[in-house]
């Protein structure tokens, strides 16, 4: 309930630039955040086995398993993690599938404000 709650966030995107861009935006927020990165669904699962995360920001279009497939796994194994699908693919069908999995849908390019809004949702 405090403004200085600490959040651990996992960024999953195969593009290093996309991850850097998001990191840049998150770091501009007045929040205490621990950031982790993964460049694929497989790597994301490995990382989650090592560290704790409160929030996952997942890209949809990735080689191998896509973001929704990863989200299904996370929802089952780590149900406490809040997820958002961050994607350039702004399609209603995709947004619906994300919502069905209990995820938020953030179209790329997202903004610092949008990210903040999502993170603070249950604060």
């Amino acid at each position: 309930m405090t403004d200085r709650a600490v959040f651990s966030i996992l960024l999953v995107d195969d593009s290093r630039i996309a991850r850097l861009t998001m990191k840049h935006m998150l770091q501009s927020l007045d929040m205490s955040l621990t950031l982790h990165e993964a460049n694929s669904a497989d790597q994301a699962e490995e990382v989650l086995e090592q560290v704790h995360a409160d929030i996952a920001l997942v890209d949809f279009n990735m080689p191998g398993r896509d973001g929704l497939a990863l989200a299904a796994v996370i929802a089952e194994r780590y149900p406490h993690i809040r997820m958002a699908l961050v994607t350039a693919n702004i399609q209603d069908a995709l947004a619906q599938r994300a919502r069905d999995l209990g995820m938020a849908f953030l179209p790329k390019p997202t903004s610092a404000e949008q990210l903040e809004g999502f993170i603070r949702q249950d604060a």
Partner: protein
Amino acid sequence: MDLFSPDEHDLIVELMNLGVGRAAHALSQLVNDEVLLSVPRLEFISVPEAQEAFRKDLPPFLAGVLQDFEGFINGRAALLFPEARSLELVNAMIGEELSADEITELEQETLAELGNILLNHCLATLANQLKQQVQTDIPRAFSSSSSELPGTLSLYEDDSNNTLVMLVQIDFSLRHSALRGYLAFVIDLQSADSFLHALREYLAEIL
């Protein structure tokens, strides 16, 4: 071509993905149906490499849409697909069930608009994200053999020193149809400098 560092290349791919995603959104709203576009590959090649790639990788007969642009980058962009499937693409977009035997002038125009929307979104996104300006001309539909393509794109042997070619693969996924097309951006090398500069500024901020 090593004009761009891996990070810069990565950034361009990300930006193209953004542009293509927005174009898909605009198209799907226009046709009231699902349209998914993705960018499986993007590469920068020299003029002779481009001429070779056109001959080798592209289908022999192409339907295309050409559009000139100027601003922080100058040049000419073309959306290319196999000619035999262009009518299928138009029909999938306008929701026609019956396949037609030949393409009419109306469908040529529809193809031109398809290219127009895609190219506008790609260029506009590149410009917006890099905080630059770009302007586009009106589109023009054409058909060509892959050997005539360099001529159509004004890509000549002696351009080797002042032209950059960005070749992008685009996958179209419509409800009942899937198609691979290509975007070819023929960029004036002098303007490539301002492009590079804008990319580096962006990266500097986030790195």
